């Protein structure tokens, strides 16, 4: 071997031992090691030399927790890979070849370890699954509770909106009444009971030439649900129904009358008690009358 070849080989081995071999020299090193036992021995010696280099760095004691954590990690590893108990020796094991026994032991340990590992994984997955199912159940309950609450709030909102609408209607009605009865030039007509035992009466507020009028009733007895009070206008030739109404617990009611023409074109008004619908039979009784 040429001297330069020897130096080249020594350089390869030195770089390999130091871990500083360039990738481009790797195949040359592999060929050298494959073909030369001397080179392999030399590399071994150089590696052992290099293995003393760390002693040149100032040694230092690692913190105690490094050792503690390492040993904890190892203990956990030991616990995890604890071998499965070996099966009791079979009666016929005596005539089995030792090699077969060894193979059997390896297989048993392998499958025992595999089974333990799989059992552990299955248990872990089962636990995870259980936790996920519980979480899903909780979420479903929460969603159902939210939906119920939402429905409750929606119903409450609808009721509130209806109440507000009623109140608005009532306010508008009250405003109309107030403006009607307090306006200058309003004419009033009185409605009287047709029977002496009734204390009821009505006060009709109207403008000459206007088709709208307001009638305020008092002393009228509350009716059964299937009956209503009906207001009538009459001009002598025909009688026109101009609205129905109920009274409150105090016997009071207000009716806004929208006549088909000016109210003063009519000569007479009256209030009857009638069935609430045509389907309900019953008598028609005149309760109040008045002249315009």
């Amino acid at each position, binding site marked *: 071997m040429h001297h330069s070849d020897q130096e080249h080989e020594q350089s390869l081995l030195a770089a390999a031992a130091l871990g500083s071999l360039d990738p481009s020299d790797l195949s040359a090193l592999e060929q050298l090691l494959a073909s030369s036992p001397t080179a392999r021995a030399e590399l071994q010696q150089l590696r052992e030399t290099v293995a003393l280099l760390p002693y040149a760095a100032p040694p*230092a004691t690692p913190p105690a927790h490094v050792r503690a954590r*390492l040993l904890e990690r190892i203990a956990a590893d030991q616990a995890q890979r604890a071998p499965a108990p070996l099966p009791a020796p079979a009666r016929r094991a005596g005539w089995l070849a030792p090699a077969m026994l060894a193979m059997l032991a390896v297989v048993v340990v392998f499958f025992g370890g595999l089974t333990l590992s799989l059992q552990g994984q299955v248990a872990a997955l089962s636990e995870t699954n259980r936790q996920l199912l519980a979480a899903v159940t909780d979420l479903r309950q929460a969603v159902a509770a939210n939906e119920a609450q939402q429905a409750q709030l929606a119903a409450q909102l609808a009721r509130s909106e209806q109440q507000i609408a009623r109140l608005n209607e009532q306010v508008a009605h009250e405003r109309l009444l107030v403006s009607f009865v307090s306006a200058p030039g309003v004419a009033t007509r009185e409605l009287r009971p047709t029977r002496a035992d009734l204390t009821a009466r009505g006060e009709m507020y109207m403008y000459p030439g206007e088709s709208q009028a307001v009638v305020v009733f008092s002393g009228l007895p509350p009716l059964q649900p299937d009956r209503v009070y009906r207001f009538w206008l009459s001009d002598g030739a025909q009688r026109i129904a101009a609205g129905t109404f109920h009274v409150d617990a105090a016997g009071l009611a207000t009716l806004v009358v929208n006549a088909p023409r000016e109210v003063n074109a009519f000569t007479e008004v009256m209030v009857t008690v009638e069935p609430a619908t045509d389907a309900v039979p019953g008598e028609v009784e005149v309760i109040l009358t008045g002249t315009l």
Partner: protein
Amino acid sequence: MAQPHDAARLARLSDEALMELVASGDSAALAQLYDRHARVVYGLALRMLGAAEPAEEVVQETFWRIWKRAATFQANSAFLPWMFGIARNLCIDELRRRQVRPIATGNHEDLLAALPDQQQNVEQSTIEIERRRLITNALADLPADQREVIELAYFSGLSQREIADHLQSPLGTIKTRIRLGLQKLKQALLHYGIDVHDH
């Protein structure tokens, strides 16, 4: 399952004999190896990484891998090159992760100076002290340019080409320095009569 060993018995065993026990699952044998070598591994990691926290990680991971890979350790080979190979590779991985390599500036006092080992256990550290004395002497005997390339190769994890780039020297020159330096180191250590099988 390994049988428990008393510390005194384990302390008398060679690294390679301890590795046989470790391979059989004896954690006390691994603890013995840790107590024997963790200081040097930590010193190496500190030298290569320059920071305590990653160096601690390297120490723990080195011995963890020794534990996990004990079965792959060849009984007729030396333990120290194998162990330091693991530690150094972990350091180089960390350096690559950081994408920086703390390169020696030419001041080798930290490498060559023998620092007092105040925390050492005297019984455990006799060989360590002796090895440190011999390697520092052997390195000190090298020409500065050969010592420099060996340090760059080993402690900074640089390839020969990277060293050539770093020193702005021809690649052939670097290869020659490494070859000569390492040969001299080997001869010096043989002359001093130490090898990695000592315990």
